[in-house]
């Protein structure tokens, strides 16, 4: 069955499913539902666009913005007029009842069908993993041509009702294009800034952070649509503007939530759209006219190819990285039509456009053709033409450093040449951003954090989480596996040498201790009360016991799998994650009085402590002789949420740990050397 999915893109299969469902409904005698334009534009389309806009690869997008705009605006205009004009000619010539279709109606038809559809492009291009440049070109075009489509659509619809179309009307129409597109972007930017600003204050209500992102974006869309501005551009603009600031402000969990919700909604929407397309095909009234349909199809293809060729020839004069003929072919071939065209046509009312059914039929035919034929054949064609595919490399810290370095280098060279180019303006924008905007929109300390540091923290977090989630049974991320600090700087600071090799069981003990804390934190999260976020003590104890039994069973299959090399200084997060990832049983220590207390807080990007942490290591692991106070203080850290007393996360480690292990624990666990022995008593009764 997997071979089917290799050949046929998902969108085709979904349409077929829709056809079957529609056929089934009809066979039963009921009337199948049709994809109503309201539902489509208000509920099905926004999630997909928001998902695309929020995760838009901004760098490539802005680098190719000129190209994308030319394709989107000029290309769509060309398609619309070429197609409309030719169809009018066909209508006049073709006889067979087509004479009554006027020029405006044909132009309207042309404008509806000429727009490349983002949903279809996404659906098909996602699967073929084409290189980023082509992907962003076709996809960007499909997003930005919405403005053109909206303008042309409304324009021609209005004009069709006029007696006479004057030059003034045409000029006004031309101007309205700017209003629509720039207005849409403006609305989006405003809402994006408001959302970013709001997210600055959400540190106490983390739970509803994702909601702001969704709501403000949707409001941007609705507001734009209300005024007949381009809703899609508003949505994209708001997503793009809010993203860097919101991501700096919100918690990691909110970020994950947003990501998954967006993906989920857009997935569902896409599926529904294609299925509905299939059903509507069966359900709708059709009027098949051979001439009209076939010529539409033909001219669509010809218009697209011609448009791409001419525009590329023009664009290549200004581009540094030219578009090769292979690229041009893919761009032309990737001009898929989809549900937007269908819905726009459906919106036409019968009175003024009594040939609506014929239009619908033609549009559906074109959609089917592009999605099925072009969608299915594009993958083998990509392979055949050996088009460059997307590099599967993960974003690495090296790449980030090099990219930044290169940016500065190129900006410098441009300044030396005296040429205000692309890099110069980008640099200026960045500086403006850093100086003024970030201060307003990002909460607290994060506003000063440079991009590289933020990126590094994000990566650390990701690796830490990966490790923890893999639960010790999975693969170790490659960076940690083979190479260690030892390899790159063996003659390091004496700091490294201080930690002597620990005996095996000491290691075991330490790991057990730290791991259990991680467990505890997990349990706390389970009993979630959204107002107070405090765990229920009795439930805790019960769960603890169950878990313990489970873990005992589990341990028998587990070996300690990560040795802690003696003279290794890891990044704190990595070590935290490493230790937290192999589960072992918890065993309460018999003597529990007067023991230092650990509370551990798994890594989170917000805590300013995570920045201070690197300072801890040299202090704690320095070659200091263990002072008696140090022994007592040793392992206490500040918990992140000032939890009410008697709650979780309190734990008592074993006694009499040698100073070295104390120090190591200090090194390897979380920040905050402050001592708070009163913080809580061991809350699990011993011996239970």
């Amino acid at each position, binding site marked *: 069955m997997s071979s089917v999915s290799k050949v046929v893109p998902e969108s085709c299969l979904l349409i077929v499913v829709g056809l079957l469902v529609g056929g089934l409904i009809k066979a039963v005698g009921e009337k199948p539902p049709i994809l109503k334009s309201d539902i489509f534009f208000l509920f099905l389309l926004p999630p997909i666009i928001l998902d695309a806009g929020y995760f838009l690869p901004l760098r490539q997008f802005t680098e190719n913005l000129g190209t994308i705009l030319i394709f989107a605006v000029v290309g769509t205009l060309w398609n619309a007029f070429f197609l409309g004009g030719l169809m009018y000619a066909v209508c006049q010539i073709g006889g067979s009842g087509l004479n009554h279709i006027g020029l405006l109606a044909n132009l309207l038809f042309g404008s509806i069908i000429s727009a490349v559809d983002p949903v279809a492009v996404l659906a098909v291009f996602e699967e073929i993993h084409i290189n980023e440049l082509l992907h962003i070109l076709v996809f960007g075009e499909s997003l930005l041509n919405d403005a053109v489509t909206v303008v042309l659509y409304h324009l021609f619809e209005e004009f069709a009702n006029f007696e006479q179309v004057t030059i003034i009307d045409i000029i006004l129409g031309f101007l309205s294009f700017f209003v629509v597109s720039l207005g849409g972007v403006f609305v989006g930017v405003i809402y994006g800034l408001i959302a970013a600003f709001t997210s600055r204050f959400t540190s106490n209500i983390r739970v509803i952070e994702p909601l702001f992102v969704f709501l403000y974006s949707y409001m941007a869309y609705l507001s734009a649509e209300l005024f007949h501005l381009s809703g899609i551009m508003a949505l994209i603009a708001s997503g793009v503007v809010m993203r860097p600031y919101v991501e700096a402000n919100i918690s990691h969990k909110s970020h994950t939530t947003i990501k998954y919700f967006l993906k989920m909604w857009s997935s569902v929407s896409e599926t529904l759209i294609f299925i509905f397309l299939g059903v509507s095909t069966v359900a709708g009234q059709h009027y098949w006219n051979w001439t009209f349909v076939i010529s539409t199809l033909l001219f669509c293809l010809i218009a697209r190819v011609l448009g791409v060729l001419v525009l590329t020839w023009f664009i290549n004069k200004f581009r*540094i*990285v*030219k578009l*090769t003929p292979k690229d041009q072919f893919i761009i032309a071939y990737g001009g898929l039509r989809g549900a937007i065209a269908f819905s726009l046509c459906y919106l036409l009312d019968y009175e003024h456009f009594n040939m609506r059914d014929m239009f619908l039929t033609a549009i559906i035919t074109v959609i089917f053709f592009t999605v099925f034929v072009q969608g299915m054949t594009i993958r083998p064609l990509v392979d055949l033409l050996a088009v460059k595919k997307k*590099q599967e*490399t993960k974003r690495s*810290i*090296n*790449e980030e*450093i*090099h*990219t*930044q*370095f*290169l940016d*500065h*280098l*190129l*900006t*410098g*060279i*441009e*300044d*030396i*040449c*005296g*040429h*205000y*180019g*692309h*890099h110069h303006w980008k*640099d200026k924008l960045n*500086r403006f951003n850093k100086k003024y905007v970030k201060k307003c929109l990002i909460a607290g300390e994060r506003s*000063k954090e*440079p991009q*590289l*540091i933020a990126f*590094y923290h994000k*990566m*650390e977090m990701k690796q830490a989480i990966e490790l923890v989630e893999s639960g010790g049974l999975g693969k170790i991320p*490659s*960076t940690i*596996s*083979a*190479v*260690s*600090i*030892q*390899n*790159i*700087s*063996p003659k390091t600071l004496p700091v490294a040498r201080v930690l002597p090799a620990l005996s095996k069981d000491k290691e075991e003990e330490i790991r057990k201790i730290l791991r259990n804390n991680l467990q505890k934190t997990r349990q706390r999260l389970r009993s979630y009360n959204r107002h107070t976020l405090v765990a229920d003590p009795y439930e805790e104890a019960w769960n603890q016991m169950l878990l313990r039994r489970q873990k005992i069973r589990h341990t028998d299959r587990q070996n300690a799998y990560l040795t802690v*090399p003696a003279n290794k200084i890891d*990044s704190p997060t990595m070590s935290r994650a490493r230790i937290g990832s192999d589960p072992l049983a918890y065993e309460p220590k018999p003597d529990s009085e007067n023991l230092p207390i650990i509370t551990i807080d798994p890594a989170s990007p917000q805590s300013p402590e995570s*920045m*201070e942490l*690197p*300072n801890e*290591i*040299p202090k704690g692991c320095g070659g200091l002789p263990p002072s008696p106070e140090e022994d007592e203080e040793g392992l206490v850290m500040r918990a992140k949420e000032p939890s009410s007393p008697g709650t979780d996360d309190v734990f008592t480690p074993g006694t009499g740990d040698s100073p070295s292990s104390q120090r190591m624990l200090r090194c390897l666990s979380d920040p905050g050397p402050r001592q708070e022995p009163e913080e809580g008593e061991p809350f699990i009764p011993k011996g239970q």
Partner: protein
Amino acid sequence: MGSAQSVPPEMRALAERTGFTSEQIEQLHRRFKQLSHNRKTIRKEDFDTIPDLEFNPIRARIVHAFFDKRRNLRKAPAGLAEEINFEDFLTIMSYFRPIEMDMDEERLESFRKEKLKFLFHMYDADYDGIITLQEYKDVLDELMSGNPHLEKESLRAIAEGAMLEAASVCMPRTGPDEVYEGITFEDFLKVWKGIDIETKMHVRFLTMEAIAHCY
């Protein structure tokens, strides 16, 4: 401006060597004269007259790269030149030329290598052909020099993380005792393999008049 009527033979030789067109050479020559205040050579101090360069965190390295004799200017003795003439100026600029469509694979490959070598020399401050951890840290320090609030330790951690990554790419199987000295040029090439340097490392050289001013 930019007339091609009288193309002096040196200009033609320059054009051939560096790959610029004659209009571009004229344009750059004008800029050179501006920077050098109509003298024949540029000194390091002349770069200070460019206002926008102040904000650049790695400006020291960039200026340094212009004066590095052996590697970038391809002249014999190693060390820094006191001043550079127009030919040297052009040589450095030629590293930033964009690729042309009609280049064949071999030329593309060598072009790519040249660019990467230039970049490598910018990282490798002591000219020993290896980027050590300390040098990498220095690069990072410079990059982040615009942020006074930064902790030194985080930079250290980042540098180490980056080296670890580079090491794991280049020497995937190492025992605990083997020492990874630093990033050699081959390793550097490997790290950059995924990124198309030729599409990124270029500056648009104009053929028309549009030069910024300096003091």
